[in-house]
């Protein structure tokens, strides 16, 4: 079992969390503050290039050079343990550390790029970072703190049938570093179980992709959504009410497109989509709007909240009312 840190953490901002589900980041901070995980967010940190990388737009050298800059920020601020909110950031950063460590030619090229950019202080020295000891996904930190988390549960979420969707770029890219199962992933199930709640565990399609497929969602929408639909239908057969996510891209694929797929298939799925951080924060009593950020969801979370004993000031149809409308 690898050692998972609870301090010196650079909480790595994600482009999709930033603008799609920012409540994932605020929920993460809420949980970290409660259970005493020491972390830091740096406004200078750039995006990992992940989407551009898998659109085949970014070349590997550019992605690696930008990663070296982010590693420098992590080291200089004494927060060398990078914790990502997104599975693609996790896989991209791990791969760039590996390249910088084993490939001397690439490392020299990256350092030349940094020098030419007037940033010689950012040069990378072999083994500055360790791909297994410095790069983590937030679900790993939460799993490691699951017993601590269970002490802060104040809202009963046990009446819902829950399934987990483990992100491909966490489980399947650097599979030797994946904890709690690759072919049968149980990382999030383990966290939920520690909170005293059962999940449905294994289901057919558990390890199948969300279907986003980076370019596929945009250039091959029908095949992309066909993969998403298949998974939703399997979950519906199991009467799943909450699907838990650990990657904003997967969450986007299911949450943004579930109503579209429902219209196309002429059926209702009634599945809520929450990130594991949002789910834990909710169970800890966090506010649905000012911490979880459910106002950014496409499938409304209010019907779920109405079923809880806990009473909330729900904004339902006017979630963005106080704000601008186009």
């Amino acid at each position, binding site marked *: 079992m690898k050692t998972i840190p609870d301090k010196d953490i650079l909480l790595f901002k994600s482009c999709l969390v930033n603008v799609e589900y920012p409540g994932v980041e605020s929920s993460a901070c809420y949980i970290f503050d409660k259970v005493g995980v020491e972390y830091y967010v740096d406004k*200078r940190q750039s995006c990992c290039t992940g989407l551009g990388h898998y659109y085949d737009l970014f070349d590997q050298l*550019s992605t690696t050079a930008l990663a070296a800059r982010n590693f420098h920020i992590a080291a200089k601020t004494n927060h060398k343990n990078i914790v990502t909110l997104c599975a693609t950031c996790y896989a991209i950063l791990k791969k760039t550390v590996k390249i910088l460590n084993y490939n001397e030619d690439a490392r020299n090229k990256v350092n030349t790029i940094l020098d030419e950019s007037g940033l010689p202080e950012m040069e990378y020295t072999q083994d500055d970072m360790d791909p297994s000891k410095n790069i983590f996904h937030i679900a790993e930190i939460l799993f490691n703190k699951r017993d601590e988390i269970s002490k802060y549960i104040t809202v009963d979420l046990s009446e819902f049938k829950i399934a987990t969707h483990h992100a491909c770029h966490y489980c399947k890219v650097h599979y030797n570093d994946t904890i709690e199962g690759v072919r049968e992933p149980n990382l999030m199930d383990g966290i939920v179980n520690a909170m005293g709640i059962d999940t449905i565990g294994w289901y057919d399609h558990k390890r199948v992709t969300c279907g986003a497929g980076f370019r596929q969602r945009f250039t091959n929408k029908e095949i992309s959504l066909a993969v998403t639909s298949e998974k939703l239908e399997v979950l519906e057969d199991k009467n799943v009410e909450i699907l838990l996510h650990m990657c904003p891209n997967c969450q986007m694929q299911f949450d943004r497109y579930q109503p579209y797929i429902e219209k196309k298939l002429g059926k209702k799925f009634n599945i809520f989509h929450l990130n594991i951080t949002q789910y834990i924060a909710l169970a800890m009593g966090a506010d649905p709007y000012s911490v979880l950020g459910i106002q950014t969801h*496409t499938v409304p979370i209010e019907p779920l909240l109405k079923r809880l004993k806990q009473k909330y000031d729900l904004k339902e149809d006017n979630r963005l009312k106080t704000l601008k409308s186009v």
Partner: protein
Amino acid sequence: MKTIKLDKNPLKLVKDVLNDLKASPDLGIYKCVQCGMCASICPGASQTEYDPRDMIRRVLENDETIIDDETIWDCFSCYTCNSICPSGNNASEVNQILRQMSIEKGEGAQKIKDFCAYGDSFMEMGIGSIPNEFFNVMVKDVGNKYMDLKVNIEDIRTDLGLGNYILPKESTDEIEAILDNSGFKVRLEKIKRCKK
């Protein structure tokens, strides 16, 4: 006398793949036994003509027409093939390298031209964004509330206690310099100029 003309460099393509910066040092392409586990579990293969097993066979047989084969663009980059391969091969990674070869040749550049705005926004803000053309389709598919969310994102982030997600000017200057010196800027302009 009957003569057989042997390929002078029968492993050229597989060597090019293995020498690519993207190729992991443990990429086990030579160990592929053509068992088909990758194809059996591949979402691309289940929905399209893409066949990761056949793609690997053609790389091993030095069949360079695979670079121009349209089907390589149907991979989902989900790495399920990687996680299931009994031989330590990684079809997903090989696919990404073949796509880069196609982009180098020119044909592939047409395939990614529509994504160029992501690169522009990265250099401007240090963060990529969904190109407008695709964003508009999402607004149509998801509904106007999706547009409302985008218009209000900064206020929502403030309510959540989160700071500005756009990087400070000195950081975007650093990023632009890095992307200029890494050759990305030139690459992006080249892709933009390619004819559809």
